[in-house]
C-alpha cells in the first residue's frame, strides 16, 4: 500500500483562509495574534528570499485571480539585484461577475493579507507594497488601512521589521470603478494615475512594471495563502487538492441555491459536492446552466456536475477555472437574456484601447439586444459567432476573450433558445425570466 492510500480522506470543507472569519472581531490585531497571526512572518524572516520562493514553488501555489499561474515561478522572475526598486502590488480589484471572495477575506481577516504581503515582499526584495482595492468597497479599505496602522505600530511593518533589518511600507490605494483595472498591466497604469488601459506584454511586469521597475502583481487570496504555507509546509498544503492544483480554494456559490455563500474546499471539488454543501437547488427547481469561475469562463450545464473544479479539470471540460465564482442558474432563466446582460457588462467595461474588443462588444451587445427583443434572425447567430472569432485571441488583453465566453458557450449548449427568439421560429414557449 502506498502512503496515498493510507492518507486519511480530506473533509469536504477545509477552512484555512476562512477559519478565522468565525472569531469575534477577527479583523483586529489582537484576535489575529491569538490565532497564530504573524508567527509565519517570524519564521520567514529567519530564511532567505530564495528559500521562500522555493517553498512557494514546492507547494505548487497557483494564482487565485483567475489565470492560475504558479506563484513561486512568478516570484522567481524578479531580478536578484536591486538596481531599481522592486514593487509588490496586490490585485484587490475584485469585479469579475460572480466573484466575491477577496472582499469578504479583506473585511474579515485583513491581517492575513498584510502578513502575506510582508513575506512575499521579503521574498522579492520589495520595500513598497501597494494594495489596489476597487473603490466601491470602502469598508474593506477601512479595514485594510486599520490593519496597516496596527501592524506598523506593532513592528510588523515599517523599518527593521521584528529586528530583521527588512523594511516595508504598504500603501492601500482605492480604485475608482473600472473592471479593466483587474487586468494586471491596466492596474499598473491606473496606479500610476492614468486611464486603466492594458500594456503590451512583453515586457512583463517583473522586468518593467510599476514606474518601469520590477513588479509582481498577485491576487489577494494567493498572497493570503502564503503564511499558511510557511507554517504548514509544502507537503501539508499538498494534502489538499490535486498534484497540479494543490491547496484549498474559496468557492463562492451564488444564485439559485438554497444556501449561497463562501465554501472553502480542496481544489477539485465538483458542483455536485458544492450543491450538497449549500443545500441543493433553491425550491428544487432544476439546474440549467452555471459558471465555474465568473462570467468570463465558458458556462457549464447539468452535464458537468461531476467536473473536478481545478485548473486542469475545468479546461478538459471546455471551460477555465477562473476565480471559482460558481453562479448557478435554474430553468426559469433565459440563456440569451443572461448572455445579453453579460455582454452589456463587457461593452460597458471595455476600455476602448483595441478595436476588436471595443467594436466587437458594442455590436455583440446590439445584436443580442435585438434578438432578446424578438427581432432576431437565424443569421444573427452566425454573425455573433463570426464576431466572437474576430475578438477571441485578437484583443489586446483577456477582457475580449472573456466577453465572448458566454456567447460561444451559450450558443453551443442552448442554440435552440437563440433560434426560438428569431422571428420565423417563434413558438409558444414557457415564459422565461428576462425574455420578454
Amino acid at each position: 500500500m502506498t502512503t496515498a492510500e493510507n492518507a486519511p480522506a480530506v473533509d469536504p470543507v477545509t477552512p484555512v483562509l476562512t477559519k478565522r472569519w468565525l472569531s469575534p472581531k477577527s479583523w483586529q490585531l489582537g484576535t489575529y495574534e491569538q490565532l497564530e497571526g504573524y508567527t509565519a512572518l517570524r519564521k520567514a524572516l529567519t530564511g532567505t528570499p530564495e528559500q521562500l520562493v522555493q517553498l512557494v514553488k514546492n507547494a505548487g501555489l497557483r494564482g487565485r485571480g483567475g489565470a492560475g499561474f504558479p506563484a513561486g515561478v512568478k516570484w522567481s522572475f524578479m531580478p536578484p539585484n536591486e538596481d531599481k526598486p522592486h514593487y509588490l502590488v496586490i490585485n484587490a480589484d475584485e469585479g469579475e461577475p460572480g466573484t466575491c471572495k477577496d472582499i469578504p477575506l479583506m473585511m474579515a481577516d485583513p491581517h492575513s493579507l498584510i502578513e502575506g504581503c510582508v513575506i512575499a515582499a521579503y521574498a522579492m526584495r520589495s520595500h513598497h507594497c501597494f494594495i489596489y482595492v476597487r473603490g466601491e468597497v470602502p469598508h474593506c479599505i477601512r479595514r485594510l488601512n486599520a490593519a496597516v496602522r496596527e501592524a506598523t505600530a506593532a513592528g510588523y511593518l515599517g523599518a527593521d521589521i521584528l529586528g530583521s533589518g527588512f523594511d516595508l511600507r504598504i500603501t492601500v490605494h482605492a480604485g475608482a470603478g473600472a473592471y479593466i483595472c483587474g487586468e494586471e498591466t491596466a492596474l499598473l497604469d491606473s496606479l500610476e494615475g492614468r486611464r486603466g488601459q492594458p500594456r503590451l506584454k512583453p515586457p512583463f511586469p517583473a522586468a518593467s512594471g510599476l514606474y518601469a521597475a520590477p513588479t509582481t502583481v498577485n491576487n489577494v487570496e494567493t498572497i493570503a495563502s502564503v503564511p499558511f504555507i510557511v507554517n504548514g509546509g509544502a507537503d501539508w498544503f499538498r494534502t489538499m487538492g490535486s498534484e497540479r492544483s494543490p491547496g484549498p480554494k474559496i468557492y463562492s456559490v451564488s444564485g439559485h441555491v438554497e444556501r449561497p455563500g463562501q465554501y472553502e474546499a480542496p481544489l477539485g471539488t465538483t458542483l455536485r459536492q458544492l450543491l450538497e454543501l449549500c443545500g441543493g437547488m433553491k425550491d428544487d427547481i432544476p439546474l440549467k446552466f452555471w459558471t465555474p469561475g465568473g462570467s468570463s469562463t465558458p458556462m457549464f450545464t447539468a452535464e458537468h456536475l461531476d467536473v473536478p473544479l481545478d485548473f486542469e479539470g475545468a479546461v478538459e471540460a471546455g471551460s477555465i477555472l477562473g476565480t471559482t465564482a460558481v453562479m448557478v442558474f435554474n430553468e426559469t432563466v433565459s440563456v440569451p437574456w443572461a448572455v445579453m446582460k453579460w455582454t452589456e457588462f463587457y461593452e460597458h467595461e471595455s476600455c476602448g484601447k483595441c478595436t476588436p474588443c471595443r467594436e466587437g462588444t458594442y455590436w455583440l451587445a446590439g445584436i443580442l439586444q435585438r434578438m432578446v427583443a424578438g427581432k432576431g434572425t437565424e443569421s444573427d447567430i452566425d454573425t455573433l459567432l463570426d464576431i466572437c472569432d474576430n475578438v477571441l485571441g485578437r484583443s489586446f488583453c483577456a477582457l475580449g476573450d472573456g466577453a465572448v465566453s458566454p456567447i460561444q458557450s451559450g450558443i453551443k449548449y442552448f442554440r435552440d433558445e437563440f433560434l426560438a427568439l428569431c422571428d420565423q421560429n417563434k413558438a409558444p414557449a414557457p415564459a422565461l425570466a428576462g425574455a420578454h
Partner: protein
Amino acid sequence: MTDLSTGATYGGSSVGAGETHAAAGPDVDVVAVSAVSAEQTRALTVPSTPDLSVFGADIVVKAADLIARYPQSRSALLPMLHLVQSVEGFVSQAGIQFCANQLSLSNAEVSAVATFYTMYKRKPCGEHLVSVCTNTLCAVLGGDSIYQKLQEHLSEDGAPLKHEDTSGTPGEPGSITLEHAECLAACDLGPVLQVNYEFYDNQTVESAVELVDALRRGEKPAPTRGAPLSDLRTVELELAGFYPEDEAGYRAIIDGPSAAVETLRGAQLAADRGWTAPTMPETAPALPEVEKK
C-alpha cells in the same frame, strides 16, 4: 467676447448646429448622436477660469499629503479626484483644474482620467448615491425590478429617473442620485444595492423603496455590512485616504459589521460538522534548502 455662432468654434464643424444624422430617419441602423445644444457648445468651447476658492487651505494640505504617499506624484491622481469629489460632491471643472495644478498636469490629462472611471461623477450628486447592481446574477434575483421600481419611485415629474439622475436638489439633505451598477462583488448576497458604497444585502423591491424613503426623510438606516451610514462626500474623503482623527470615531467606522451569514456559511458548516483542513505539523517544517548563488 462677442456672440460666438455655434458651429464656428470647431473650425467650422457643424457640431451642435442642430442638423445631425438623426435626421437620416428611424430605419437607419445607427444610434443617433444627440445634438448638442447651443448652450452646451458654448460651455464646451468658451474658455473659462474656474473658481478654485472652494478648495481651501486644508484641501491643499491633504493633496500634498496624498502626493507624499507615492514614489511618483501622478499616482496621487485617483485619490485626489476622490478628494475633490468629497468637497463638491462631483468632479467639476474646478476640481479638474485643482488636481492639474497640484500635480503639474494639464487639464486634459486629468480630464482623460476623470472621465474613464465610473465613480467620478461629472454632475452634482445627491447627499446619497444609490447604486443598484443589475449585472446578470443580481438582475435575475430581482435587481432589475428594484432598479426599475426606484427609477419610478424617485421620479419627481412622472418620468423615470435615468442613470445618474438625482431626485431632489443635489447636495441638499435627502437628495438621492440613482445609478445602476456593474457587479459589486457580493453575489452570494444578491440582489444587493449600495448607498454611498455601503452594502445593503438581499434586497427586495419593498425593502429598497423603504430604504430610499428613509433616506429622503433624513434617516440613515444601518447598512447590512459596513460603517454607520454617512453621506457620499464623507465616504469620498475616506476613499481618498482620510479618516476621523479621534480614536473613538475611527474605531466606530472600522468595527462596523462585516460578516454576513452567507460569508460564514462554509466555515460555520465545517465547525458544525467537525470538518477541518488536515492538521499542520506540530512544528513548522524547515524552509527548503537552496543552492547559494
